[in-house]
């Protein structure tokens, strides 16, 4: 595919923090929260805890064997606590890097590079937002819900998972006062038709000044359609394999719909948070 302008800058590419650094952190906790997800907490200095919702750190996972992990692994921040001086991540063990990460014990070192990327942006005139996430995407959305609540916005969180056993972060969203709607495949409640009805209900009730999503292609498509139909703006946090995490290597490009054409953007640098309608589902 060829585009007229392979690298048009997205309009919200304002840097979040002007600095990033390599931090030698100490692991405080690294525990399974359910059969699929682990929760890791590490010490962090003020620059690290200044990370914004939707931004990420690039983690150096311990060596696993000759094949790596060689690259760092990107993880969006799940919780940053400037007072405690900690950052936390929620992750799923999927391959060599996260497998090695899961072996860390309290007291071990963890090398974090960040904060990186462009996080979520809240418009001051939004009153009520809807966040819709699935799987580990909820980890990325949790700090956004917190930020919105802190800015006096109402939050409805639609949390989707395969089964209640692997549903994460419900309490985290409830703790910030969000209305939480949990849906699962196992319960037959997460199908697109049902979700669409739920969302249309929220729109009708005036709860959806903006949509936010992460973690599911199907949800992205659904929100794009509803967003277009009702003129509701939104943002999506995307994933892509990364090497540098700093916009240097161009391995993490994705295609976006921009001005009627297709533009290539770097997920690490121009995102990982992008305009809902510009994202192209995968």
């Amino acid at each position, binding site marked *: *595919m*060829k*585009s007229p*302008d*392979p*690298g048009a800058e997205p309009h919200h590419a304002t*840097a979040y*923090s*002007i*600095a*990033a*650094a*390599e931090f030698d952190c100490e692991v405080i906790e690294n525990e399974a929260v359910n059969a699929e997800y682990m929760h890791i907490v590490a010490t962090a200095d003020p620059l690290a805890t200044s990370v914004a919702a939707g931004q990420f750190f690039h983690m*150096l996972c311990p060596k696993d064997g*000759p*094949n*790596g*992990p*060689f*690259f*760092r692994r990107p993880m969006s921040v799940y919780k940053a606590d400037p007072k405690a001086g900690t950052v936390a991540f929620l992750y799923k063990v999927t391959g060599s890097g996260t497998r090695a990460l899961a072996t860390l014990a309290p007291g071990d070192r963890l090398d974090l*590079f960040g904060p*990186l990327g462009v996080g979520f942006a809240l418009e001051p005139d939004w009153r009520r937002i809807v966040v819709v996430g699935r799987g580990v995407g909820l980890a990325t959305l949790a700090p956004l819900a917190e930020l919105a609540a802190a800015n006096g916005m109402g939050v409805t969180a639609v949390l989707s998972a395969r089964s209640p056993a692997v549903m994460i972060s419900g309490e985290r969203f409830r703790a910030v006062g969000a209305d939480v709607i949990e849906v699962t495949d196992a319960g037959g409640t997460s199908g697109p038709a049902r979700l669409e009805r739920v969302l249309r209900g929220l729109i009708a009730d005036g709860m959806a000044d903006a949509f936010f999503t992460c973690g599911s292609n199907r949800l992205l498509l659904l929100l794009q359609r509803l967003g277009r139909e009702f003129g509701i703006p939104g943002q999506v946090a995307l994933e892509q*394999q990364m*090497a*540098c*995490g*700093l*916009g*240097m*290597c*161009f*391995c993490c*490009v994705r295609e976006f719909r921009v001005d009627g054409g297709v533009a*290539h953007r770097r997920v690490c*640098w121009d995102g990982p948070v992008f305009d809902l309608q510009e994202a192209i589902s995968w």
Partner: protein
Amino acid sequence: MVDMNVEIGGVRLANPVMPASGTFADGLDKAVDFERLGAMVIKTITRELRVGNALPRVCETPEGMLNSIGIPSKGMPYFHEETLPTYTRYSTPLVVSISAPTVDGFASLADEVSLPGVAAIEANISCPNLEEDGKAFANEAASAERATAAIRRRTSLPLWVKLSPNVTDIAEIARAVEAAGADALVVANTFLAMAVDIESQRPRLGSVTGGLSGPAIRPIVLRMTWQCARAVDVPIIGCGGIATAEDAIEYMLAGASAVQVGTVTFVHPTAMISVLEGIESYCLRRGYERVTDLVGALSVEEADETDMEWVDPLR
């Protein structure tokens, strides 16, 4: 105090440490003070507008990585309006890496980027030569020489030529490129390589093959650096798998006048700074007043080379 200045083919650098093309961009200023670098070498540009290769574009290998980024290029207007002003804000010399599919393309692009604020041109001749069946310019002495000579005629800027390691006799190519007017050589680009995903039974890179870089290749490129340093008089910039100051010192002892740090920056963003500081401490510790004293200081005893003396067959 160690004098860290080096002169590389007509460019005076405050120190011998710089990024490798394609592994550096303005985003790194979040973590690294560009004023501390010996030079800034930017991602290869082309005249043509290009999107780069199919995804996935990188994968991990033992102590290394493959990349098939290609050269996504936003064209010359973008270069003039965006890229150049981004870097000319710094006082560090800017080296512009260029590539083209034809000898004339190389020459005219060199002409076009010979602008105020550009300290040197690095010709990335590892790209396919459309006039010769797509074989890389850097693969044969003759085509490497033609490209170099054509660029030389069109620019008065210092000209660095970056060689490919995918060759039988790199010293021969180094000599040809020197003869054609290069002011310095960069040794070297990536090794053509591949990896296969045995579950999907497909190549791990969207474009099947890509370039291997990182610590894995260091011993091979170090050998090439040593061979080139003995073959030519122009300075050599060593580039391949440098992760630490020790690695950079290996290159300098083997004959490199400066080094480029590539892949490791993806893993340790501030690696260039630690390489730089480590070279300086090594000089201090060993009593070198000038970093240039390291260059080629390797002491190679006349090997007795017993194994090369093929004695008469016994029977």
